[in-house]
């Protein structure tokens, strides 16, 4: 299970994104595909972990604003109990007509993976459960 909360800040003109994933699940996922086995959130975590996370998220999370792909900035991560929180931001968004999300986080290793995506844009709240078969969500956000 993962949980992605996406808020649009009109004041800062940014999309603020928090992604929560269980550390064990992410460890399994990252290690299924790579030759080298790594540990996450322990004293043996590789020093370049931010680069690993950044590239993982870049290939598994995509945002489309008004139907155009928009890259996000990786701000950082934080471990809390058995979960890792990622903070991402899409900058310079002066308005949103629609938001598209593709989320395939953890889909490689977990057949029944459920990625919950919640959006809050112009005070309108939506929530989606994305699965392997259906990894896209679309919100029309006209004011």
């Amino acid at each position: 299970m993962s949980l992605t909360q996406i808020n649009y800040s009109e004041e800062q003109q940014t999309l603020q994104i928090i992604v929560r994933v269980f550390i064990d699940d992410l460890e399994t996922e990252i290690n299924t595909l790579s030759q080298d086995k790594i540990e996450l959130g322990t004293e043996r975590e590789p020093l370049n972990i931010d680069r690993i996370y950044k590239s993982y998220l870049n290939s598994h999370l995509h945002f489309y604003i008004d139907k155009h792909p928009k890259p996000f900035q990786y701000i950082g991560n934080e471990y809390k109990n058995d979960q890792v929180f990622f903070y991402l931001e899409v900058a310079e968004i002066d308005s949103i007509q629609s938001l598209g999300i593709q989320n395939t986080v953890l889909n490689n290793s977990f057949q029944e993976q459920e990625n919950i995506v919640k959006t809050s844009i112009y005070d309108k709240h939506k929530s989606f459960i994305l699965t392997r078969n259906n990894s896209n969500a679309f919100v029309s956000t006209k004011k």
Partner: protein
Amino acid sequence: MKRIYFTTMLLFLAISSALRAQVEENKTTQKGHTNTNKFKQLKDEFNTPNSQHTASGAPGANYTQQKVDYRMDIVLDDANQKIYGEENITYHNNSEDTLEYLWVQLDQNKRAKDSKTPDIEGDGAETYYTPEKFASHFIDKPFEGGFHIVHVNNSKGNPLSYHINRTMMRIDLPKPLASGKKFKFNIKWWYNINNHVPRRDRSGYEHFPTDGNNLYVIAQFYPRLAVYNNVEGWQNMQFWGRSEFALEFGDFKVNITTPKDHILNATGVLKNPKEVLTKIQLKRFKKAQTSFEKPVLIVTQAEAELAETKKSKEIKTWTFDAKNVRDFAFASSRKFIWDGMAVNIAGKSVMAYSLYPKEGNPLWEEYSTKVVAHTLKEYSKYTFNYPYHKAISVHSKNQGMEYPQICWNYGRPRPDGTYSDRTRDAMIGVITHEIGHNFFPMIVNSDERQWTWMDEGLNSFVETLTELSFDSNFETGNLPRDIVAYMEGDQSGISPIMTQGNNVHQFGPNAYTKPAAGLYMLRKTILGGKLFDHAFQTYAKRWMFKHPTPEDFFRTMEDASAVDLDWFWRGWFYTTDVTDIGIKSVQQYRVTDKPTEKMMQLVKPYGITTPEQLRPFIYLSTEEITEGEPEKALQVKLLDDFIEANYKSKEEAKLPTYFYEVTFDKPGGLVMPILVEYTYADGSKERKKYPAKIWRKNDREVKKIITSDIEIKNIVIDPDLETADVDTSNNLWPKAKSSLFDKKKEKLLKE
């Protein structure tokens, strides 16, 4: 007296005429509704109480329970990973009913070739396959699992008629079994033991390629009688693999034959330690029974490592005797190290044991038995004194599974023996949880097949208290704040707790975390420790060695606390509603004698148009102060006179300086107490708890007048995150300027 009468009448007239005006405009006949009040009693949802399950939640005078005794001879064939058994069963019909057949559970048939368990899961092509996975899906023949029933005989050795319906076997009784009578029969069986690692089965073996040995954790391994009780009749719902077990209590005498160099432990008292342990091990076995401070090694790592290399061809037989248990399980391997210590439970000495291979060290020798001992002590405090003589924690890869007096637990260090804090804490957590299952459901024997939450939820709750007393900073993952991410999720992925386990979405949060967090909230925030603990203990004691239903729990908690909790059960257990309480607005008032605009509007229909025509009143006003108006409350003559006439002094009449009206709104469907923290201008803080009943007449919004001597700077709802409030952005007044995201961003960019 009269004047008061007049003004009340006047107000009444004004209001009723306003209402009349409204009614006349709205001509359509209004529809009625049934009682949808959140405080409505659960008469419709609950089973009707009777003399078996009473209205108080206790077992009644006519409560009955069957008893099943087993004498079994078991052979573990390590070379071929097979297990053989013959069992003599004595079934005691204690019910008032006459039975025509018996239902026996064949849980191993979940792994039979014709099992329907895989058929109810949807699947599709994977993105990629490991060779092992590919082979298991497309090349290998299915595992030859499931019971081979050799015979089902009566006590004279003649065959009985039986019919197997997947994981259930019906035995047709030669003549109906009357109330109070017993029936003896015999089943002979064998099956191929599965490797439990690839599919995360609840029992089986793990193979260690480096030394060529197997570690067996064996359970659900013999045909077991299904429950026949007062509420379900036969509990013969199929075993699909998820929703666990319902079993009768009884006495067991079991002989288990293993290779001579195996170390084994099981449910029950080991009757022949002299025959199965070496002299030195026997000495240590006895020494452990008087060691209350720390564990004593009964079988050392050196002995286990030696056994790993020898692989004896000889055999030996272990004999166990278990009284009043609902099930029997065992673990066996030549890899086992064994340690144990004594625990003092209210003056009685109980043994805490651990079995683990060298792969579990040094983590296991350090923690396992100590956690077992701590768990037995803490759970005994919240329920009843642990009645059995021992509890064993067995190291088993990926397992977290419970049986009477014995359980399997994960937690394996890296190959070099080091381990992360996360591995250690997960292991402490799982041992606490599985040992805790001795209380729920091994003794308080709820029906797991129907209600997962009754054992998992109650157990996770006591587990949480136990972990917090082991280490007050322990991250239990079961607190109200931990369930928010689940509860705020999309409703299509959430089921009420009161849902049969096989049909539940998100099993873990639904059946473990949510009930545990709810009970934690009930204890800490709603009832308080004293009331809660007495009621919870009453439930545990009433239903020790019996079969409680959800209503028995709900009713007992009210019966023993004198607190109506139907609103809580209804919201938290029967719905998927969420907590969301917010501060809608805060209005500051001043005290004046100048009639407010609202007041003048009210009296206008009666020809009162100027303040002078009105009798003097005191007003709480938000209107801007005008000239000549009193600046302080005591300058209001009416009030001043009243205080003068009725109080000894002005000091005695403590008149507040600040008046606020706070409007709380409730976007969430759940009713909850409102927990508020007021912070004053001088930094001092005050907390106030408004009971959940505050919502009984208005489920959306309530107002409260708050008075103080010092100005209020801010107000927070649920400052300690006790109520699982899913949206805390409305919990603050004044509203927070920067979001959680902004704060984290600032912090992360600094690093």
